[in-house]
């Protein structure tokens, strides 16, 4: 079951829809491990990657996903083009719409910008991250990574650590993992914790040791450079001392706990380099692999719905 027309966030998805994406993604993981990585799910369709904010990792992951499904993929580096010339977001959307894309992958630095764009176009829109709001494919790839490592995606204790306030990854994960009935702990300095977060139905810990106690999954977030000095936290070294993941703190989690990070990592700031490389715990490389598979699954499902919708419109038109 997957009814959504767009993938704007995790919030509108039902648990069954999430499971559908993950199940299909599992099959794409197998496909991606073959020498010939080719499907025709998006054959003849046009995918446009519209990144208002620079991103190498996410954009290449979406590009690869589209290409492996047979779509014609175009990358628009909007950050350097029409926006600089003063075009509004809505005008950009209408211009693109006139080119008849089928899938639009959008990243924007403003929360809600992708939703606004989705209202103005006729194709399926995938949110590749909007401001501090959501980053649904990241949450889905994290879920797939957890499900494959732990054998299930429910009743796990999951600690999300670091800069929660500015992280769309944290928000999407919080929503997804909550929908799947996990116990979620948010760990980080109060200055990086959004207001009222305790009302989201999760535990909030300022003390990382308490937050990691018996956790099954430790999800680290990136601390952005501009937040490092003096504003939100006093210094890199104090942050690392109190909230950096090292062997001593990780020892408090369950012995088989997995360590995740959405990347790119700051070794020695939020995570000790040896932990990031520890094959007994770290699934950071798996996350990258799952990313391509999950994006293939999401685009495949959206494309099916798009075809069905267009088919229905056509038959209605014939009846009239």
């Amino acid at each position, binding site marked *: 079951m997957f009814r959504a027309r767009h993938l704007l966030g995790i919030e509108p998805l039902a648990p069954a829809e999430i499971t559908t994406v993950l199940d299909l993604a599992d099959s794409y993981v197998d496909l991606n491990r073959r020498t010939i990585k080719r499907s025709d799910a998006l054959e003849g369709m046009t995918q446009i990657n519209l990144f208002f904010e620079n991103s190498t990792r996410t954009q290449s992951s979406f590009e690869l996903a589209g290409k492996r499904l047979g779509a014609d993929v175009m990358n628009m580096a909007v950050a350097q083009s029409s926006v600089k010339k003063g075009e509004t977001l809505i005008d950009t959307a209408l211009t693109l719409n006139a080119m008849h894309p089928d899938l639009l992958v959008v990243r924007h630095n403003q929360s809600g910008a992708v939703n606004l764009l989705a209202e103005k176009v006729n194709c399926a829109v995938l949110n590749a991250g909007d401001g501090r709001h959501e980053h649904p494919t990241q949450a889905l790839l994290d879920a797939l990574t957890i499900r494959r490592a732990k054998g299930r995606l429910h009743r796990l204790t999951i600690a999300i650590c670091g800069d929660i306030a500015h992280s769309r990854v944290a928000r999407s994960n919080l929503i997804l993992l909550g929908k799947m009935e996990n116990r979620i702990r948010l760990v980080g*300095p*109060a*200055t990086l914790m959004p207001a009222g977060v305790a009302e989201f139905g999760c535990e909030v810990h*300022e003390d990382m040791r308490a937050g990691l106690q018996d956790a099954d999954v430790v999800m680290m977030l990136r601390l952005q450079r501009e937040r490092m*000095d*003096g*504003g*939100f*936290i*006093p*210094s890199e*070294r*104090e942050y690392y*001392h*109190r909230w950096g993941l090292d062997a001593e703190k990780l020892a408090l989690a369950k012995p088989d706990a997995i360590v995740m990070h959405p990347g790119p990592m700051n070794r020695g700031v939020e995570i000790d380099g040896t932990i990031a490389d520890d094959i007994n715990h770290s699934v950071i490389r798996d996350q990258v692999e799952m990313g391509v598979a999950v994006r293939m699954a999401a685009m495949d499902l959206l494309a099916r719905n798009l075809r069905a919708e267009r088919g229905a419109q056509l038959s209605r038109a014939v009846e009239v």
Partner: protein
Amino acid sequence: MILHVQNARLIDPEGLTDGIGSLTIRDGLIEAVGAAAPEGAEIIDAAGKCTAPGIVDWGVKIGEPGERHKESFRSAGLAAAAGGVTTIIARPDTLPPLDDPEALEFVARRAADAPVHIRHMAALTKGRQGREMVEMGFLQDAGAVAFSDGVRPVTDTRLLSRCMTYARGLDALIVGHPQDAGLSAGAVATSGKFASLYGLPAVSPMAEVMGLDRDLGLVRMTRARWHADQITVAASLPALRRAKDEGLDITAGTSIHHLTLNEFDLGDYRTFFRFTPPLRSEDDRVAMIEAVAEGVIDVIASFHTPQDEESKRLPFAEAAPGAVGLQTLLPAAMRLFHQGGLTLPQLWRAMSLNPARRLGLDAGRLAPGASADLVLFDPEAPFVMDRFKLLSKSKNTPFDGALMQGRVIGTWVRGKRVFAGEK
């Protein structure tokens, strides 16, 4: 070693009592109150004079690092012992400001040689510049008891709110200086008839109220532990009272100079009377005494600020602010006692028990198990203050030449005598 102080007038700020009794001290701790002298104890006959917990002086400027010619840990320690101060809470407005854990560890090692306890506040922002927060966690581990930018308010409210939020997670105490920085810039007197008459740049008492309101708003928002260093005007009291009634984790202090001097004292342009904030009206002074009695203001401190002769030998508005106070705090406080405004237990609650409690120190109590930090003094003994007899390296006291009452006879730190005065 066992000491037994007998025939003493015990000033107990916890029970707010004042009566004749005895104290037994063993191995640096008070063992018993009101017990008979144990065998082999060294007997000290207080001859009916007062014995009280040693003073905890919150906000002492020491010139280390940077201005050791004005005051060193050693000279400050000697002045403190002679003034009945057994714990100094040092200010971070040094040169450079005490804002990193390595510097604090170094300074704390130097301070360990002083005859009294010295604890340190650290700066709240790096360089006291109000732009970036200090490493509060590391500084706390290094022994910082509170965080303060001294008399420089943090004007960036967003940064201050983040400092408070971060401090709350550490259960750290932030000490604010309630003052609107814009209004009070350059002011050396309180605005009104007298400042206009003297022709001095002045600031309205409202600048303090505005600063207080702003800081209390941030405390409401962040639920941080907060202390106002100096509340000096009556107009601040309603806001303070209301915030305390709400249950905010706040306390407030005031300076001995604002309790004993007023704006009339500026008349001769004597620069020893220049303070930050400036001296206030007589009505404000009286209101502050009442607020201490009532408990709205929790702490009285000297705000000991040593200045060399040259920085005071200037036109009033150009002179450096502040006065020394470690050795004059007790006799100045006796003015409040003799004028009937405050009882001795009330004074010791504000000068010893409350600051110790607020900073989490073992001090300020006359009870079994408490540290034997004590002062023996004669509240009546009259003398004329001679600034050149002060043990501080700097001699800038506004009480020079004044007739005072109250002399320290002895001071003990952890049961060890660190000062012996004339009986």
